[in-house]
């Protein structure tokens, strides 16, 4: 009787040990697999805000030295805003901020080609400093990929910033 109990206890212990090991082996296998498998991470912003940064790009300009950053934000209410920061260009007559339907306006093409589609955002508020411009609702930002500081009178491109996904 005692022998049967001992034997069954031993059998149970063995089975238990085997069962415990199996997942360990399986885990090892998974670790090796990790080399091939992708590990996806999905951290949120530390303070999940309401406004989103959609696009950003740096200004370049040869003929009229232009520098700074152009960033497109989407506000909580869905409004699109273009914001220029650390911005600097030369002052001039009748200068406007426009979106151009190209990937980038080349420096050498100081003058915009007449057939490129444009979207007016307003008169340049200042040739230096941070400034915001509203982008009309429904603007296709996949198409209008370049911000240009543009002198309407002479069709001159003071500087341009190609926008990239932020």
């Amino acid at each position, binding site marked *: 009787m005692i022998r049967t109990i001992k034997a069954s206890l031993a059998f149970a212990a063995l089975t238990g040990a085997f069962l415990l090991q199996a997942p360990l082996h399986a885990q090892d296998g998974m670790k090796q697999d990790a080399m091939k498998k992708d*590990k996806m991470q999905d951290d949120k912003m530390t303070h999940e805000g309401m406004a989103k940064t959609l696009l950003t790009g740096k200004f370049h300009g040869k003929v009229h030295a232009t520098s700074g950053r152009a960033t497109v934000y989407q506000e909580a209410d869905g409004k699109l805003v273009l914001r220029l920061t650390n911005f600097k260009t030369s002052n001039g007559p009748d200068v406007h901020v426009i979106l151009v339907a190209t990937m980038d306006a080349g420096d050498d093409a100081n003058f915009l080609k007449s057939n490129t589609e444009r979207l007016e955002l307003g008169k340049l*508020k200042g040739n230096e400093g*941070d400034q915001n411009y509203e982008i009309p609702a429904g603007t296709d930002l996949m198409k209008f990929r370049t911000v240009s500081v543009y002198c309407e009178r002479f069709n001159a491109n003071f500087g341009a910033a190609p926008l990239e996904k932020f």
Partner: protein
Amino acid sequence: MNENGKAWLSRKKIILSLIGIPVLVVGWWAFRPEKLFINQKVSEAAPVSLSSEPEALYTGKLAGNAHQTSGRATIYKSSDGKKYLRLTDFMTSNGPDVHVLLVRAEDKALEQEIVKGDLDHVELGALKGNQGDQNYDLPATADLNQYQAVVIYCERFHAIFGVARLEKF
């Protein structure tokens, strides 16, 4: 004769000024040359709903060295003053012992796939995932004026998976 000459001269003057003054005025209006010397400075605040947001300080795009790597690295300062690195649209290959480091942007080693010797760096932690958005806290002592590049680095093989050079946002 003398009288005639004088009259002719003054008529010439009138004609000249009749043509010259409008030309000057139009020229001034068109070119506004005084604007070359006058700056118009503005300083608008960020859109309202942005003011409580973490402020982006630096940003750069990731490019691959030893392994294809893409995405964007941005350093934010949250409202409590803490800085952190955030990777977005991030993708690299998985690997053993991969870390996220801040390094000197001018370090020649960044152009290579395998680093010989030591890389002057600030450790930000083990890579949390080879894909997806992720945040890494920056040590308070990290000097962002000196360390202006982010590197995805395999410590075991000294391999640079990818580099992002940071630019002022």
